């Protein structure tokens, strides 16, 4: 569920990140020792951002294969997903550039914690902006599930998803400001799983309830 232009830009950014990682590794004496500040870490660490982005692209594309609906509805969803995907890819590219620059001895004075906090904060803001618009998206149906929700059930679920996404974004902003950097990853993973679990719980609840009629 990614439009062609966005997909092209994402693939390009993944290729740039991968090429930069390969180039840096080719200049290393030992792949297991990529200089990071005072210490070293595995050079394969450079492939984490492009792989993460590739995973996100696959998940979004797969979600597009699982839904069916009018062409305009699908196109609206593709347009909706574009800013989050491009924003995330740009953040990951900047992270890769910073990692490579630091391994070459540039930007060692850079406050990495501040960069990590800023990245989480920007992603949080993107989720808030996109979550706000979820209720406006035209409804689509699942291609694999036999359940056919009513327009009201779909609309109710989308409005709830919007609120939950805004909540997730706000939680990420708070985490970016207050949570210590080493705890940031587990906190964000917990927030993400809690968000998904809440959405699944609410969808099931709505589907079980009788749809109110006018």
């Amino acid at each position: 569920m990614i439009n062609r232009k966005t997909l092209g830009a994402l693939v390009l950014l993944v290729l740039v990140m991968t090429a930069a990682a390969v180039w840096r590794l080719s200049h290393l004496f030992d792949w297991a020792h990529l200089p990071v500040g005072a210490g070293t870490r595995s050079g394969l660490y450079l492939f984490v951002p492009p792989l993460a982005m590739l995973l996100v692209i696959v998940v979004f594309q797969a979600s597009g294969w699982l839904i069916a609906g009018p062409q305009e509805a699908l196109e609206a969803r593709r347009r909706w997903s574009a800013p989050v995907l491009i924003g995330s890819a740009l953040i990951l590219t900047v992270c890769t550039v910073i990692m490579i620059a630091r391994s070459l001895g540039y930007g060692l004075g850079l406050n990495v914690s501040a960069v990590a906090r800023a990245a989480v904060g920007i992603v949080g803001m993107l989720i808030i902006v996109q979550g706000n618009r979820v209720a406006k998206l035209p409804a689509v149906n699942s291609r694999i599930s036999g359940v056919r929700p009513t327009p009201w059930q779909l609309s109710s679920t989308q409005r709830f998803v919007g609120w939950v996404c805004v909540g997730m974004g706000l939680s990420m902003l708070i985490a970016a400001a207050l949570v210590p950097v080493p705890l940031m990853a587990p906190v964000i993973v917990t927030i993400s799983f809690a968000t998904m679990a809440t959405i699944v719980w609410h969808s099931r609840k709505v589907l079980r309830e009788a749809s109110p009629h006018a």
Partner: protein
Amino acid sequence: MNLVFKALSDPTRRQILQLLRKKPMNAGTIAEHFPVAKSTLSAHFAILREADLIEASKSGTVITYMLKASVLEEALLAFAETVGIGIPKQQTIFRKAKAR
């Protein structure tokens, strides 16, 4: 956004949105809640549709309206309702006294 603010500035339109938050309704059912002419109500629906706050689906002769507000718009709706935007001053004082 101007259209949204215009739509939310009227208490009748806000009440329509509050009704639609609970369930989708057809024009006739919504009209039962308001002592206004159907033509006035139609004008309200037109403004709400123009602001993309509601969605209308037609089946036969019945038009069913459904809420289509974003998170920010729902928050604005709650804010306008709390502050009492568009409600005459006397009515606001009465509402506050009633709430006490």
